[in-house]
């Protein structure tokens, strides 16, 4: 872009134009030297040439200092601050993201451990229930055993009692057959029980 480049260089052109006026006006100023003192001093053309000269000098100096020193420095400071602020914001954002991540992790961990704990609790509840059922059953069976034992004992005593009776009968019958004498029932019973006691 040659055109834009030319324009870029020509942005100083009005300074050249300004100096051009300095060449144009002196003749005018000289022709009207020493005008009347009445009226505004601004229209006293004799002062024009020197004012334009010093305007050009001071404005060129001013422009030079502004464009080479002041503006770059202020721009630098502002840019630097902008950068710093952006950096801080980015840092804060990344820290926040990190914190979010940690929070999410923590929450996930919390949920996991909670579910794990729930599982453990459920398991132990089940286990306890099972054990309880087992224990109940065991209790039930032990009761059955007890009642069966009682029945057995009862049967046993019944049997033993009937055994006594049978033994007495048998003993009485045997004695009658062997010696032919009838022994009283009470005597037989006494003897038999004595013998049985001895055996048991």
């Amino acid at each position, binding site marked *: 872009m040659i055109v834009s480049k030319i324009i870029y260089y020509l942005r100083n052109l009005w300074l050249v134009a300004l100096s051009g*006026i300095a060449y144009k006006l002196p003749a005018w100023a000289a022709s009207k030297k020493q005008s009347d003192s009445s009226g505004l001093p*601004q229209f006293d053309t004799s002062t024009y*040439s020197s004012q334009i000269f010093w*305007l050009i000098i001071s404005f060129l100096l*001013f422009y030079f*200092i502004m*464009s080479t020193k002041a503006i770059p420095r*202020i721009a630098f*400071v502002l840019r630097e601050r902008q950068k710093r602020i952006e950096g801080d914001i980015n840092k804060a954002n990344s820290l926040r993201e990190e914190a979010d991540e940690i929070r999410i992790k923590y929450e996930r961990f919390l949920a996991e451990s909670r579910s794990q704990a729930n599982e453990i609790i459920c398991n132990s509840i089940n286990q306890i229930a099972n054990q309880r059922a087992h224990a109940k059953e065991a209790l039930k069976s032990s009761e059955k055993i007890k009642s069966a034992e009682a029945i057995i004992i009862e049967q046993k005593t019944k049997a033993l009692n009937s055994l006594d009776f049978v033994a007495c009968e048998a003993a009485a019958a045997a004695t009658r057959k062997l010696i032919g004498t009838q022994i009283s029932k009470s005597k037989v019973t006494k003897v038999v029980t004595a013998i049985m006691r001895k055996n048991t």
Partner: protein
Amino acid sequence: MVSSIAQFQIKPIGAELHLFGIDISFNNSALFMIIATILVSAFLTQSVKSSYTIPNRIQSLAEMTYEFTTKIVSENVGIEGMAYFPLIFSLFMFILAGNLLGILPYAYTFTSQIIVTFAISIAIFLGITVIAIIKHGTKFFRFFLPSGTPVYMAPLLIPIEILSYLSRPISLSVRLFANMVAGHTMMKVFGGFVISLGAAGFVPLLFLVALTAFEVLVAVLQAYVFTIITCIYLSDALYLH
């Protein structure tokens, strides 16, 4: 009583100087141009030193003038105008310094000199015209006939447009000059009243206080107006209309 326009008198300082037969004697107007240059340069370079994070008051002020001018240029000219930013900024600060310095007692207001304001505005005018012609070539001359104008209006409209274009530097310079002259003359007139009225002089004195505050406003406002109109002319040159 001292004439209220005596304050605008150019007084030579030192010996008469000549360059190629032209009178370039140093005077009070020139002195204040140099003072303005030194003060503003010192203000803008020394206040903005090394602190990057939190600026102090004077640095904030320097940054504010910078950002203010950036805003004027970017809003009125656009991105392309940023190439001219140093010039616009210098222009604004130079005129602002001239206007504000002039309010100080015994100071000279160089912006109250028609030749100074006119020299600045004619330089701007010529520079902008050259930029426009380089950028747009012959298309630039269409500027004097807005598009969509009926052909039979052209003989009437073109002279009007040319005249209004040529009067730009005049209106630009006279606006600043007249504002400065009027304000300072009025202050001087009221200053005269304070003296001549004796004990009753405190009434115009009170008015003078208010007037001084008003002059500060005018000083800033006129510098701003000068800058913003320059920006508008520049944007006309860059984009036509």
